[in-house]
C-alpha cells in the first residue's frame, strides 16, 4: 500500500467524519420524531398538574392550556421576555386567569411564578416555578422545599382578602399583610410583591386579557 498523500488523507478523514455525523444526526432526528408526541402530551399534563394546585379543575370547563394569550414584554409582571396567560372559562363566561409572572428582586435573582386570579379579581393561589433562593433558608417560597408541610408559606395566597390596598401586598415587617420566615425576608417579600402586582395588573386589564 502506498503512503497516502496529505490531500487524500484529509479527504478520507473528512468523509469518515461526514458519515458518522450523518448517521448519528439521523439517529437523533429519529429519536426526536418518535418521542415528540408523548413529550408534548406529558409536558401538558405536567403543566396542568401544576395549575391544578392553584385553580381546581372543576372550576372551569374549557381546554385551559389551549386558551392561551401571549403577553408582550410586560415590566408590571416582571416579564422581560413576554409570557403567557391561560384563560379559564365556565360556560363561555370568564372564570379565572392563570398568569405567568416573575419577581426580579429575589435574594438570588429572578423568581418565576404562576398566579391564578379569579374573574372578580380575587387571587386564588400562586406557585413558584423557578428560583435560585438559598437552600434551607429562602427556598421556602417553593412549597416543595418548605419545611412547614402542613401549611406551606405560599398558601397565604390562596384567597387572601379581596380588598387589600396595594401597600398591603408585602411582608408584615414592611407593614404588609403577609407572614414571612424570620431571617429570610427578601425571598418572601419579592414573591409577595410580585403576586400583588399580578393582582393589580389582572384587575386593570381584565377585559383585554379575556379577549
Amino acid at each position, binding site marked *: 500500500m502506498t503512503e497516502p498523500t496529505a490531500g487524500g488523507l484529509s479527504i*478520507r*478523514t473528512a468523509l*469518515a*467524519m461526514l458519515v*458518522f*455525523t450523518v448517521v*448519528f*444526526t439521523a*439517529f*437523533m432526528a429519529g*429519536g*426526536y420524531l*418518535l*418521542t415528540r408526541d*408523548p*413529550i408534548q402530551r*406529558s409536558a401538558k399534563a*405536567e403543566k396542568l398538574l401544576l395549575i391544578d394546585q392553584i385553580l381546581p379543575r372543576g372550576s372551569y370547563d374549557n381546554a385551559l392550556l389551549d386558551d392561551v394569550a401571549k403577553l408582550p414584554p410586560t415590566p408590571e409582571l416582571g416579564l422581560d421576555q413576554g409570557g403567557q396567560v391561560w384563560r379559564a372559562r365556565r360556560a363561555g363566561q370568564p372564570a379565572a386567569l392563570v398568569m405567568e409572572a416573575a419577581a426580579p428582586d429575589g435574594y438570588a435573582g429572578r423568581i418565576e411564578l404562576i398566579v391564578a386570579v379569579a374573574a372578580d379579581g380575587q387571587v386564588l393561589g400562586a406557585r413558584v416555578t423557578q428560583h435560585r433562593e*438559598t*437552600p*434551607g*433558608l429562602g427556598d421556602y417560597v417553593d412549597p*416543595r422545599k418548605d419545611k412547614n*408541610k402542613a401549611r406551606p408559606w405560599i398558601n397565604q395566597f390562596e384567597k387572601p382578602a379581596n380588598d387589600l390596598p396595594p401597600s398591603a401586598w408585602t411582608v408584615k415587617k414592611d407593614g404588609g399583610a403577609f407572614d414571612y420566615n424570620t431571617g429570610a425576608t427578601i425571598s418572601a417579600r419579592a414573591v409577595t410583591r410580585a403576586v400583588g402586582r399580578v393582582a393589580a395588573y389582572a384587575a386593570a386589564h381584565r377585559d383585554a386579557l379575556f379577549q
Partner: protein
Amino acid sequence: MNLKHLREIAHAGIWKSNTGLVQLLGLCPILAVSTNLINGISLGLATAVVMAISGAVVAALRTLIPYEIRIPVFILIIAALVTVLDLAFNAYLHSLYLVLGIFVPLIVTNCIVLARVEAFAAKNGPLSSAVDGFAMGAGLVWLLALLGGMRELIGTGHLFNGIDMIIPSAQPLRVLPEAYPGFLVAILPPGAFISLACLIAGKSWLDARAAKRAAQARPAAEQPASA
C-alpha cells in the same frame, strides 16, 4: 475474557480507581448536585446508565473509527446517545424523568464519560466496556450517595429530602433532633469541597491501612503474594 476479568473491572470502577475519589473526574456535577441523598443517587444512576451504553456502543464501533478523528467521533456518539436517552426518558418514563431529567444533560458535559470511552472502550470489547462504564457509574453512585447524605444530614438534620418526587406520600426522614438548627455551609458550595476532601482522606486512610496489613501478612505466609 472471563468472569474474573469482569470482576476486576468492576472493582476498579467501584473502589480502586473510583471516578470521584481517585480520578477526580467530573467534579463539577459531583460537587454541584450532591446537596442531598436523593439527588446524589439520581445523578449517579443516570451517569451509570449513560456510561454503560456509550461504552458498549463505542466498543462495538471501535474498529470503524479512524484513529486520527476518534475524539470528535466519540463526542458525537456520546452526545447523540445522551440526547436520544434524554428524549426517551422524557417520553416513556416521565415520572422518572422529572427526578433524573435535569441530570441527563449534565452528563454530556461530564468528562468521565469521554475519559472512560477513550481510556477503555476504544481498546476493549463491548461487554467489558459496558461493565466498565456501569462499574464506574456505580462507584459514582455510592460516592454521591455518601457525599449527598453527609451534606444533607449536617446541613439540615434530615435525610431523603425530595423523596416525595419519587414516592409522593413519603416524607423526609428527620435524623437529628428537632432542635438541630442546621449547618447551612454543608449544603452550600464550600461544604461540597470540604466533604469531598474528607471522603478522599478517608479512602486514602483505608487504602493505607489495607496496604500495611497486607505487608504484615506477607512474611507470615512465607510466600510471595500474587499482587
